[in-house]
């Protein structure tokens, strides 16, 4: 019987209790789904530690609002301040999480972001050409050679206009798998090549590892190539495919000059740690490979039925398909796949790509595991954990003999699940976390929408044990977790003011000034506990473009200063110690505009304020600024 009482046993709370002043064991990075952010929770406490804006503007810290970060959200279709953030991948070295970067995908306007785990800031965003919904992304190879971006929606390559019917779909629509290479030292991303696949929906993906390193696996649906009512029309065939891509082979073909350059246009936005500013670059070309011509690069494995997850176990030998509509879990063997390819055990071709015989690649099937298997993660002890959306449960089973070992209910409608390191060669194990889509009956009602949730289970023993559930922000899609010790010590505590290379930095109050260039006014301002310099500014006129470049002179951990000005239509600034941020403000009416620090900083925080005087256009009020020139300060030094 599924009830809260039966699910939780007495010592659960003790296992998640983290005393005040103590640190959590793990950082859990959880995708924000349709809110476009990444949230960071401590495990096992479930405490929210941080929100990292990636693809959505964030008023709390001015991300996407200040001049420095606006370029991060530029695309070839203009400024796109929102996205649907689905999956996350921690960078890996030798198949283990190394704590350097976190990659995030944007599903809607196809993009991939990189978050620097020293600063917990978005460091880079790359747009993807020839993509229509970047869903099977950003999964990663075992040395972070590539981050993958597979398209969910097939679209006409080059995005030309095309009729919407099945005949047109089959003829014109294609899917692309983009391989984004990652610079070993800087982390900088570039689209290395794209494989142009037949029109179908690439759903999820995993890199091979160990013996299967050099391969990438994608699940796919709508191999029927229907253009309408996919709920019915994409469920016609008994089996869809897992697409197996030999990317080492693709690299060979590129070396041999078999790639074709295609004109495209996409943005690459990079944030510079020293100027605290992002810049955008437009890239106009992409290298493509055609598997219909290059025959031994891509193979298809039949997989029942509308597969969602396709997950590779820690040994790299087994690939677990999860048919959303299947009543079993097929497990494929990498060795058998290679043998089938060598033996040419094919059942035919699909749009010119060889289809391996199902049985020839199959390790075996987990029979009657539950309803609606979605995703599988592993504990490093030979066990797999699969989420079941329809029957709302996690099922533990043995990879070797495919026997079901245990099952626990989830509340409610679990999507992804995550074992810390469960996607690597060496899972950390200990916990499995369920990320739930719907939370009925779980929390106090807060209107029609309830907080979505995550649930933490212990997997230390033979039986899984529910320990905790906690509300999450946005839709907790996929997640990654890493031991805190791999990140904590490298955390940036403040930015060295002497390394601040922002073009509008004020290195000390002496350097503050107001400069007019036509109708553009640059205010070089500093902030320190507890005043802004200058705090009185006159001579600004209606219609001027005023740029407040505020430098935080603090050199102490966790002392950001804020800056907000009355009627500014964008947002505030939140400036980290040693950093410079810029707020653009165009006054539309004459008057006095108070400004102030928004982030509580000291006993005299409330006094950290000032005024901007805005005069009518063409006024002869001279430009004038200053701080503390009116009153003489009282002497205390002679005390």
């Amino acid at each position, binding site marked *: 019987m599924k009830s809260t009482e039966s699910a939780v046993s007495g010592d659960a709370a003790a296992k998640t209790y983290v005393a005040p002043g103590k640190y959590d064991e793990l950082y859990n990075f959880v995708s924000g789904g349709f809110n476009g952010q990444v949230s960071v929770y401590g495990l096992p406490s479930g405490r929210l530690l941080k929100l990292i804006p990636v693809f959505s503007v964030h008023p709390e810290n001015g991300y996407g609002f200040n001049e420095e970060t606006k370029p991060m959200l530029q695309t070839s279709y203009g400024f796109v301040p929102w996205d649907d953030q689905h999956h996350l991948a921690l960078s890996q070295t030798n198949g283990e999480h190394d704590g350097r970067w976190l990659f995030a995908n944007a599903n809607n306007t196809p993009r991939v972001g990189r978050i620097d785990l020293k600063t917990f800031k978005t460091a880079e965003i790359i747009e993807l050409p020839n993509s229509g919904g970047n869903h099977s992304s950003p999964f990663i190879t075992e040395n972070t050679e590539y981050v993958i971006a597979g398209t969910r929606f097939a679209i006409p390559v080059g995005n030309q206009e095309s009729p919407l019917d099945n005949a047109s779909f089959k003829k014109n629509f294609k899917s692309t798998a983009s391989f984004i290479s990652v610079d070993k030292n800087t982390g900088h991303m570039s689209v290395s090549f794209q494989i142009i696949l037949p029109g179908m929906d690439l759903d999820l993906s995993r890199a091979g590892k160990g013996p299967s390193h050099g391969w990438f696996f994608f699940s796919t649906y709508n191999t029927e190539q229907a253009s309408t009512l996919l709920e019915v029309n994409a469920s016609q065939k008994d089996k869809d495919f897992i697409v197996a891509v030999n990317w080492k082979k693709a690299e060979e073909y590129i070396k041999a000059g078999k790639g074709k350059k295609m004109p495209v246009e996409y943005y690459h936005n990079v944030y510079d740690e020293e100027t605290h500013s992002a810049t955008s670059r437009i890239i106009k070309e992409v290298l493509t490979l055609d598997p219909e011509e290059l025959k031994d690069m891509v193979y298809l494995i039949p997989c029942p039925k509308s597969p969602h997850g396709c997950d590779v176990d820690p040994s790299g030998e087994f690939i677990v398909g999860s048919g959303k509509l299947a009543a079993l879990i097929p497990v494929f063997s990498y060795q058998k796949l290679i043998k089938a390819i060598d033996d040419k055990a094919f059942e035919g071709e699909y749009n010119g790509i060889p289809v391996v015989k199902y049985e020839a690649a199959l390790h075996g099937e987990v029979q009657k595991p539950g309803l609606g298997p979605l995703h599988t993660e592993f504990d490093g002890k030979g066990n797999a954990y699969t989420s079941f959306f329809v029957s709302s449960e996690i099922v533990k089973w043995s990879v070797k003999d495919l026997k079901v070992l245990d099952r626990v209910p989830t509340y409610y409608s679990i999507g992804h699940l995550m074992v810390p390191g469960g996607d690597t060669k060496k899972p950390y194990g200990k916990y499995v976390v369920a990320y739930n889509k719907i939370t009925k009956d779980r929390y106090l009602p807060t209107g029609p929408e309830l907080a979505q949730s995550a649930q933490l289970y212990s997997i230390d023993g033979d039986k899984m044990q529910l320990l905790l559930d906690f509300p999450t922000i946005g839709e907790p899609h996929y997640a990654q977790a890493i031991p805190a010790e791999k990140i904590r010590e490298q955390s940036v505590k403040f930015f060295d003011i002497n390394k601040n290379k922002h073009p509008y930095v004020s290195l*000390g*109050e002496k350097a503050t000034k107001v400069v007019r260039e036509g109708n553009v006014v640059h205010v070089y301002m500093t902030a320190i506990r507890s005043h802004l310099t200058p705090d009185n500014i006159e001579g600004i006129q209606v219609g001027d473009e005023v740029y407040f470049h505020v430098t935080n002179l603090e050199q102490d951990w966790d*002392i950001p200063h804020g800056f907000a000005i009355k009627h500014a239509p964008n947002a505030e600034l939140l400036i980290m110690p040693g950093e410079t941020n810029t707020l653009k403000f165009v006054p539309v009416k004459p008057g006095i505009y108070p400004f102030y620090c928004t982030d509580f900083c000291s006993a005299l925080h409330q006094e950290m304020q000032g005024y901007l005087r805005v005069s009518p256009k063409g006024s002869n009020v001279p430009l004038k600024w200053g701080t503390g020139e009116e009153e003489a300060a009282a002497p205390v030094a002679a005390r």
Partner: protein
Amino acid sequence: MMNLRYLLIFSLAALLALAGCGGNQEGSGQETSSAEAPADNSLVAGKTDNADPKGIGKFRDVPLTHPLDEAMVVKGREISDVKCMSCHKLTDQKLVGPGWKGVTDRRTPEWIMNFITNVDEMLEKDSEAQAMLELCMVRMPNQNLTDEEARAVLEFMRKNDGKN
């Protein structure tokens, strides 16, 4: 008045008790029970006058040179412009913090160096530093100066005070 006196006695007692069990080292397993341990009123209940003129920190002996090291003076002035002059004047006037004029007469070189580099502990424990905090009401930000940078700033302060 009565209350204040009791608080003073209690806090002195607490101080002695702490000293007796070897200070407040982390992980020493000390536990306080609400019946015996009064609130820590050390910030408001009066000061002890036994402050170390060298302050609290690693600097116990800062050798001074005569004449002044002019290279250090220049460096100290540059550092001060970026990190210090937001809050301090070179005269005896208070801005946010106290004016610098005469500081090298009022404080030992060690106290100055310890205060610059160990500001949080000094503000918590050094009675002179605490007295300044009561006056200024803004904790001096830890500007994370290196030892050499702090020494250069000290040299600039000496120059400002007309030392040679």
